[in-house]
C-alpha cells in the first residue's frame, strides 16, 4: 500500500530527472521530441500557446483487445505556414498498448512513445499504428505538437509555439488492476462471512421455525463455535471436507478444460500452475483428511463405547486450526499469486523468489495443518489405547477403529518430518535462512526426503481408513463376520510399517543415493503382500454370505474394482526399467487417482451412505444413491482409465499443455487429443454426478425417513445408541460391555499378550502409577 505509493512517487521523480537530462536533446528540434509527457513541451517556448490546436483522430471511443488502429496526429494554427523549411513536430505517449510506425516520417522512442523524424518535420499531420493492449485498462494518449516557423535563429526554436492534447480511450474493463493482497483477503473474508452467516441463519431457522430470537440464537451458535463434543466436531470436519472436495473438484475441472485440447489458452499457465498445486494440497489436506477425521470423530468413540475422546478440548483445537489454515493456503489465490509448486513443493524452486507470493502462506497454512494432525494423533491414539469399553481387547476392536488407529500412528510419527521441512521452507522464505539455498551448500534432495518420509505414509493414511470402512460395510452387507479378522489387522499394521521404508520410490529418478533407490525398490514390492491379503479377505467374506444390495454395498464393490486396478498399476513403479519411463507421466496420475479417488473417495462415499442415518437420524434416498453410484462409477472410469495409456505414450504431468506429433517431431500421437477431450468430458460428468450426493443429503435432512438405531444390522457399539446418538454418547458411569461370540479366546492372552501383562500395572497396585 504505502510501499507502492512511495515507489510510484520515486518513479515520477526519476522520470522528471530523466526528462531534465534529455532537455538539451529535445531542443535540437528537427530530429524529433522525446520525454515531454510529464514536463510539458518546453522545447519551443515555455508556455503552451492557445493559437495552436493539437488533435488525435482515428481512435475508437473504446477499443477491442489486440486490435490495431491507425492514429493520426495533427495540429493547426501557429506560425507554421506553407513554404517554411520545417512545419512542426510532435510527441505522442500512450499509457498502454504498443505504437508502430507506418512510414519514415515518424519514429519510436519506445513501444509507447513516438515522434517525428527529420524527414517528417515538414508535415502538419502524421499517421501511426497503435495496437491495443489485452488488459482492458483505460488508455491515455498524450500528444504534444509544435508549430514552427522554420527559422534557424536561437537554435531554431524562437517564435515556435506548441500545444498539448489528451485523449482517453476506454477499455473493456477486462483484467482487474493488480490488487493489494491484504485488501483482497479482507474482502474475501467479509464476503464469505456474509455467505456463511446466511447459511448458518438458515440452518438455525430450520431448526427453530417458531422464530428468530437472539436469546435462542446466541447459545446455539456459541455451541457450534465452542463445542468439544466429538459428534459436533465430527460434523464440522465433515462439512469442511465436503466443501473443499467441491473446491478441489472445481480446480480439477479448470485443469481439464485447459487440457481438453492441445495448445489451449483457457487459463493462463500462471493459473494452471496454481490450480494443480492447490488441487493436490486441497484434496489431500483439506478434503480427504477432514473427511476421515470427521468419520473418525463421529464413529471411533461410538465404536469403542467411549463417552467422548480422551482430550475433547484438544480435539476442538485440531478442528479449528483447519479452516484458518485453509484460509492461509488460499491467501495467495485471492491476491492472484497462489502457490505454484506442486503439492510436493520441491526445493529449491519452492524457496526461490520467482515463485508466486502465495507460497509462503501455503507453507504456513500447512504448518498449521501439521499441528492439527499432531493433536488429532495424540487424541485418537490415547483414546483408542485407554478408553475401550470393558470386554473390548485389541482384537475385538471393530476394523474401522483399527484402521483409524493404524492411520493415526502413521500420520503421527511421520508428520513431524514434514513439519520440520515446512518450517525450513517457511524460514527460508521469510527470515532468509539457507536450508535449501544451493549456492550456500543446501541440498534440494533433503526436502524431498523429509517430504516423502511423511508423504508416503500420508497416502496410506488416506487409504487405510477406507479399508476400515470397506471391511465394516462388506461384512455387514454380506451378513457375515469379516473373514480373517486377525490377518486383516496384521495386514493393516504391515502396511503401516512398510509405508515408512518405501518412500524412496518417489525419488527413483531424482539423484538420490542409488543404494537407497535399490533398497526401496525391494521394499516397495512388499506393499503388494498385505494389500493382497486384504483384497482376498474381502472377497472371501462374501463367500457363503447373502449380499444385501444397498448403495453402500455398491460403493464397496466399486471400491474393490477400482482399488484392485489401482493396486495392480502400482506394481509397475518399483520396476526400474518401467519407472524411468513412467515417472511423472499420466500413468502415475492414473495410478494415484485410482487409489485415492477409487479407494479413499469411494470408501468414504460408502461410509456416508452407511453412517449418515446414524449421524443425522434420517435415511438417505436409495434410488438417488444408486443413480449416484452408476453415473459416478462409469464417468470415473472414463475419466481416469484413459490416462494410463496417455502416460505410456509419454504425456507428462503438471504441464499447461501437451504436444501432438507434427511433421517435424514426434510427441503424443494424434489420438491423444481425442482421449484428453474424453477425459475432460468425463470429468464434468463425474463432478455433476457427485452433486447427486449433495442433493441426497440435503433432501434427507429435510424430509428423510426416520432412521432406526441399527438400520443395516451391524454388530459394533455405534448401532446400540439411538440415531442420532445422545451427548455424552455413552453414560460414563454405565459403559456398555462387549460380549464375545467366541468364548475361548477372551481370557487366554497369547505369548505377546503375556509379556505385555507382565509389564502392565497390576489391578491391586494401590493408587497404581501415582507417587
Amino acid at each position, binding site marked *: 500500500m504505502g510501499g507502492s505509493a512511495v515507489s510510484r512517487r520515486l518513479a515520477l521523480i526519476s522520470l522528471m530527472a530523466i526528462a531534465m537530462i534529455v532537455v538539451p536533446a529535445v531542443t535540437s528540434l528537427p530530429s524529433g521530441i522525446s520525454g515531454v509527457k510529464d514536463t510539458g513541451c518546453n522545447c519551443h517556448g515555455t508556455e503552451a500557446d492557445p493559437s495552436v490546436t493539437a488533435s488525435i483522430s482515428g481512435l475508437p471511443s473504446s477499443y477491442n483487445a489486440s486490435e490495431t488502429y491507425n492514429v493520426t496526429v495533427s495540429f493547426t494554427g501557429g506560425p507554421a505556414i506553407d513554404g517554411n523549411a520545417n512545419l512542426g513536430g510532435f510527441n505522442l505517449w500512450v499509457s498502454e498498448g504498443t505504437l508502430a510506425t507506418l512510414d519514415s516520417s515518424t519514429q519510436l522512442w519506445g513501444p509507447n512513445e513516438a515522434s517525428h523524424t527529420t524527414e517528417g518535420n515538414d508535415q502538419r499531420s502524421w499517421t501511426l499504428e497503435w495496437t491495443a493492449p489485452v488488459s482492458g485498462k483505460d488508455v491515455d494518449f498524450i500528444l504534444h505538437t509544435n508549430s514552427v516557423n522554420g527559422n534557424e535563429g536561437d537554435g531554431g526554436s524562437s517564435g515556435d509555439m506548441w500545444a498539448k492534447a489528451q485523449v482517453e480511450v476506454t477499455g473493456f474493463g477486462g483484467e482487474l488492476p493488480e490488487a493489494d493482497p491484504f485488501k483482497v483477503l479482507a474482502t474475501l473474508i467479509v464476503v464469505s462471512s456474509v455467505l456463511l452467516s446466511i447459511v448458518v441463519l438458515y440452518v438455525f431457522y430450520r431448526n427453530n421455525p417458531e422464530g428468530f430470537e437472539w436469546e435462542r440464537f446466541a447459545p446455539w451458535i456459541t455451541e457450534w463455535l465452542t463445542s468439544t463434543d466429538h459428534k459436533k466436531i465430527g460434523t464440522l470436519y465433515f462439512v469442511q471436507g465436503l466443501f473443499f472436495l467441491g473446491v478441489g473438484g472445481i480446480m480439477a475441472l479448470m485443469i481439464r478444460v485447459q487440457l481438453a485440447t492441445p495448445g489451449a489458452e483457457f487459463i493462463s499457465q500462471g493459473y494452471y500452475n496454481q490450480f494443480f498445486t492447490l488441487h493436490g494440497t486441497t484434496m489431500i489436506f483439506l478434503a480427504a483428511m477432514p473427511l476421515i477425521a470427521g468419520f473418525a470423530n463421529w464413529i471411533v468413540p461410538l465404536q469403542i463405547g467411549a463417552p467422548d475422546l480422551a482430550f475433547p478440548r484438544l480435539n476442538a483445537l485440531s478442528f479449528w486450526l483447519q479452516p484458518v489454515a485453509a484460509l492461509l493456503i488460499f491467501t495467495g489465490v485471492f491476491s492472484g499469486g497462489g502457490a505454484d509448486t506442486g503439492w510436493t513443493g520441491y526445493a529449491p524452486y519452492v524457496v526461490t523468489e520467482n515463485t508466486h507470493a502465495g507460497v509462503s502462506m501455503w507453507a504456513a497454512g500447512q504448518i498449521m495443518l501439521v499441528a492439527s494432525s499432531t493433536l488429532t494423533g495424540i487424541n485418537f491414539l490415547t483414546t483408542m489405547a485407554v478408553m475401550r469399553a470393558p470386554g473390548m481387547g485389541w482384537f475385538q476392536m471393530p476394523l474401522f477403529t483399527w484402521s483409524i488407529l493404524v492411520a493415526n500412528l502413521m500420520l503421527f*510419527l*511421520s508428520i513431524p*518430518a514434514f513439519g520440520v521441512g515446512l518450517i525450513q521452507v517457511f524460514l527460508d522464505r521469510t527470515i532468509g535462512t539457507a536450508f535449501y539455498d544451493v549456492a550456500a551448500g543446501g*541440498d534440494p*534432495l*533433503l526436502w524431498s*526426503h*523429509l517430504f516423502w*518420509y511423511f508423504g508416503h505414509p500420508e497416502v496410506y493414511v488416506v487409504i487405510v481408513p477406507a479399508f476400515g470402512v470397506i471391511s465394516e460395510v462388506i461384512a455387514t452387507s454380506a451378513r457375515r463376520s469379516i473373514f480373517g479378522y486377525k490377518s486383516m489387522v496384521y495386514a493393516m499394521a504391515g502396511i503401516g*510399517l512398510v509405508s*515408512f*521404508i518405501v*518412500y*524412496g520410490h518417489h525419488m527413483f529418478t531424482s*539423484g*538420490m*543415493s*542409488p*543404494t*537407497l*533407490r*535399490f533398497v526401496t525398490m525391494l521394499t516397495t514390492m512388499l506393499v503388494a503382500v498385505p494389500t493382497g491379503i486384504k483384497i482376498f479377505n474381502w472377497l472371501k467374506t462374501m463367500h457363503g454370505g447373502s449380499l444385501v444390495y444397498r448403495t453402500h454395498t455398491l460403493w464397496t464393490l466399486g471400491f474393490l474394482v477400482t482399488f484392485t486396478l489401482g493396486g495392480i498399476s502400482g506394481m509397475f513403479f518399483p520396476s526400474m526399467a518401467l519407472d524411468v519411463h513412467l515417472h511423472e507421466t499420466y500413468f502415475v496420475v492414473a495410478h494415484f487417482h485410482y487409489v485415492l479417488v477409487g479407494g479413499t473417495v469411494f470408501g468414504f462415499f460408502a461410509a456416508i451412505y452407511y453412517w449418515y442415518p446414524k449421524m443425522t437420524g434420517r435415511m438417505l434416498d436409495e434410488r438417488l444413491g444408486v443413480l449416484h453410484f452408476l453415473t459416478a462409477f462409469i464417468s470415473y472410469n472414463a475419466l481416469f482409465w484413459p490416462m494410463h495409456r496417455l502416460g505410456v505414450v509419454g504425456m507428462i504431468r503438471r504441464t499447461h499443455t501437451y504436444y501432438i506429433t507434427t511433421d517435424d517431431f514426434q510427441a503424443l500421437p494424434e489420438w491423444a487429443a481425442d482421449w484428453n477431450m474424453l477425459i475432460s468430458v468425463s470429468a464434468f460428468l463425474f463432478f455433476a454426478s457427485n452433486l447427486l450426493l449433495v442433493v441426497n443429503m440435503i433432501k434427507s435432512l429435510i424430509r428423510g425417513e426416520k432412521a432406526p438405531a441399527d438400520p443395516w444390522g451391524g454388530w459394533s457399539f455405534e448401532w446400540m445408541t439411538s440415531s442420532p446418538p445422545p451427548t455424552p454418547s455413552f453414560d460414563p458411569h454405565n459403559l456398555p460391555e462387549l460380549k464375545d461370540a467366541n468364548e475361548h479366546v477372551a481370557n487366554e492372552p497369547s505369548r505377546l499378550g503375556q509379556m*505385555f501383562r*507382565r*509389564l*502392565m*500395572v*497390576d489391578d491391586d*497396585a494401590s493408587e*497404581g*502409577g501415582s*507417587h
Partner: protein
Amino acid sequence: MSNTILGRDAYWMNFFGLMLLTLIEVAAVGADLSSAAEGFSMTERQLTLWILTVIAIPKFIMIAAIFMHLWGENDSGILTLTALFPAFFIIIMILFIGLTHPDASMGLPDWCRPGNYGL
C-alpha cells in the same frame, strides 16, 4: 518415592551424577587430548566426538529413568515400552535421511547389481 540409589535418595544421586558427567564433557572439550588421540590412532576431534557420544548415552538414560520415572514405578515397564516405540522410525529416518548422500545412478554399488552375482 522409596527409590534409592546406593542407599541414598534417587533424585539427588541422579542429579549429582548428571552434574559430574556434564563436567567431564566440558573438560573433554577444553582439555588437550591430542596425545591420547594418537594412542587410539584418531584425530583429536574424533576422540572428542567419541567421548561426547559415550557420555551422552548414560546422561540420556539417567534422565529418562529417574526423572521421567521409567524406572522403579508401577507403570515404568509399560511406559518404557511406550517411550521406545518410535525407535524404529527414528532409526529409519536417520539411516535414510541423515546418512545417505546424493549420487548419480551409475554409482549403484556392486552388491545391488545382478551382474555381480553372474545373473
